């Protein structure tokens, strides 16, 4: 199936199986900072991308679903020579450590600020629950009621 979409502002076309995971399609496109930390479980958020302005786990979206959509990936923010304010602030705050999903966190925080330029602490916490921060360990989503026995 032919998939036409916009990735980080550029028109892209793929002739691929529409049941392919969106992450795999993005890897073909070279967006390798869309990573997998949880066997596609939708827990850690390392595979976060924006589809038409909405954060999704790229491992839980099929390529066929993004036909005609606009996609933003973590590497579509600033590059290492020209960082965005959010990326630079993350480094300055000391939270970029092992950083396996720091790019995805930067994307999510950027999206949050674009949506709401004056977020409260609670709003930041709520939105970042879709993440597991490896070093800070405090950004994780409670998708299911967890076993606590």
């Amino acid at each position, binding site marked *: 199936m032919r998939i036409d979409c916009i990735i980080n502002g550029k028109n892209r076309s793929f002739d691929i199986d529409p049941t392919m995971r969106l992450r795999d399609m993005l890897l073909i496109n070279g967006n*390798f*900072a869309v*990573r997998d*930390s*949880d*066997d596609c*479980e939708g*827990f*850690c958020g*390392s595979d976060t991308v924006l589809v038409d302005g909405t954060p999704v786990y790229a491992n839980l979206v099929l390529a066929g679903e993004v036909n005609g959509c606009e996609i933003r*990936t*973590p*590497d579509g923010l*600033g*590059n*290492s020579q020209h*960082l965005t*304010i*959010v*990326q630079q*602030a*993350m*480094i*300055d*705050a*000391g939270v*970029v*450590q*092992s*950083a*396996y999903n*720091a*790019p995805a966190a*930067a994307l999510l*925080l950027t999206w*949050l*600020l674009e949506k709401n*330029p*004056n*977020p409260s602490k609670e709003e*930041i*916490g709520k939105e*970042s*629950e879709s993440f*597991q*921060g*490896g*070093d*800070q*360990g*405090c*950004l*994780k*989503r*409670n*998708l299911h009621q*967890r*076993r*606590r*026995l």
Partner: protein
Amino acid sequence: MKLALEKMKGGCYKSEIAPSFRPELEVIGKPGAKIDGPQLVSGERAFVEDYVTPDTCYMVVLRSPHASAYINSIDDSEARKVEGVIEILTAYNTPETHYMQAGQGNPEPSPHDRRLFNLKVRHVGDRVAAVIAETLEAAKEACSKIKVDYEVLPAVFTVEEAMAPGAPLVHNGIVEYRSGAPADLDEYNKKAGDPREGKVIYQFPLHADIHKNIAASNKGEIGNVDEAFAHSDAVVEATYQTSQIQHTPLETHLCFAKMEGGRLTVYASTQVPYHVRRIVGWVTGLPENKIHIIKTRVGGGYGSKQDILIEDLTGYAAFVTGRPVFCHNTREEEFIANSTRHPMRVHVKMSGNKDGQITGIFMEVCANTGPYGNHCLTVPMNSCSKTLPLFKCDNMRYDLKVYYTNTPPAGAYQGYGTPKGTYGLMMAMAELADKLGIDYKDMVLKNHVEEGYMLEILKGLGEGREGNVVPVGSCGLDEAVRKGCDMINWGKKEVSSDPDWKIGKGFAMIMQGSGLPGLDHSEAIAKLETDGTVILNSGGADIGTGLDTISAKIVAEILKLPMDRITVNSGDTDSCAFDTGAYASSGTFFSGNASVVATRKLKDMIIKEAAFQMGEKEEDLDVRAPGEVYSKKTGKTLSYYELSHTACSGTGHGQMIAHGTFTTAASSVPYGAHFAQVAVNTRTGEIKVQKFYALQDAGTPINPEVALCQMYGAVMKSIGHTLHEDMILDKKGRCLTANMTDYGVPMISEAPEDFKAVLIDVNDEFGPFGAKSISEIACNGAAPAIGIAIHDACGVWIRNWPMTPEKVLKALGKI
């Protein structure tokens, strides 16, 4: 977010990012951009998976469904017919070389008790075969077509089962010693079982007895503990149990290896590049000059990447096939076939007098090392050697035994045994204070060590050799305890408006080390390039903790160079010199000190060459910003650019390159105290950590903002261990919680409402610019602090982590 918003609105940060230390220094002790930050945050190529080439083959491992079984036969004929399959590796076509996967100093204090593939599988998830194929799909399909005939054996999963008379033996093969073999070894080996058991080879005696499932043991005493117990006002005795937990790095273990020009190149996400090279060399038979380890950025280590868990097999696969091979663990494999924290049973007996003086301490540690002995001696020893030296007590005894079982393997994990020993000892001290009717804070203040106190207990606690008896060095322990007590209003009872919720407070003293004196070894090579910039080749392994930034700051500070004129290249075994690696909290102290030695030598070379070029005396010259030599006598200057350019002009003395080696017998111990305020719902058993204050003496925090985040991260991890995380095994040894959703890492909603990390300012005599370690120690305090706070809240001692609502309700007698 706060910083970004401030910059967006006002063009600059208004908040203080982190405190600064050492005003006399330019960059050390100041918050500043982590040098690998831009690469990492922008999603540039950084991790192993980013370097995999399109022609790469994939490797998938077939794993044992049984906790213990002999392999009778393996039929891979159908699997080999799958299109794209290159090779299938099993015990039948791989070397019989016995080794172990712990990345420790050589000779290791761990037994060589495994091969690449064994003919006896010892845990669910143990390697049975590996398929190398041109696609991942082909490798998986071929794996599913391998037929294995197992002879299933009985298994043991706990230390109690392992120590029981007549228990099934995890290892029952031939025992060998590289040194120190006992006189009766031949007699001992007559009891060896089936040849498929393989061998257990000790580099030196670990006081083991595989016929009792004992992988290692140790014991020692100072003073007379029994005498102390007999003549004290009160004695408490309790057992504290910890669960099996996993590191859960966001980047699961992975490796990419390829042959090029007769050499094996391995891209590794590792804490120990040089140990990887040595062990890959052992299994392939290649000498070290034929192996090139490239440590990429590491997406989370926490000790699990101190072990060579995937590089051995991937390196071997690339070597025998001649094809580039990539292997990437699934999350399930991380849990069942990787490494975990050793589950431990810590039995403590402690005595004291009415004046609060602790008179005697006995620790009995029983640890579960799983099927193989990675770190089997040293992790449990750390539960004693990094806890007992907190106490000024003349009578102390420890007795530790480590058992083989058929659980998923255990290994190194941030804290390295200390979190469990600290849990037992601090809880016992709180129980003793409670029994004596003494304020726990007063007891802590009366019994903690201080600078100069001679640590006799360390004599028997070396890592496989006699330990160094040293006095306590720089020590911020007292300040951490007093400051934390003030912060949390120690002694003030908090009351909830909801009668179901009871609030309590607790804290724990903590310590760790800064590497292993007498064992660890670091090197660095500092090069002045022809334009006056510097490249530092550090053997150290930055695993995200900021070690490369520390090395860059050291160069900047000594040579007075701007940070952007310094590049740190680290963990590459071809271009850098030997370093034992990033473990035992050694990075800052050892690798940082090697950078200091190399850079000071380079400075000496610069001064000497400048004296020649300037026609001045060396003693009249010094360096200054932005990278030049100046004469205090004549006022003349010479830039590093001019200096180096002339030296490399064809008629000069050549490039200035300095090599620094750092080893030491000195011990720089970080101290601290962690405080918790918890609320316990006595109707539901729910526990909320309302406040957590982590106060630590890290010497000079070279990267203060990174250091603070290391503390926050480690505390969150240890809150997870304390309250939630647990690898639950069924009766056949299968892990029921081998995914992120079921396992139980803490969520953002479970972060303490009031969460502070505080750096106690202490300047250490031996550390680079006074620095000590920061991260591992931060894993040690949460369990006892929360456990003691739970008792303060509702009067029950939870002596088993994770401290779940169910355990609280049981202790309260409600279920």
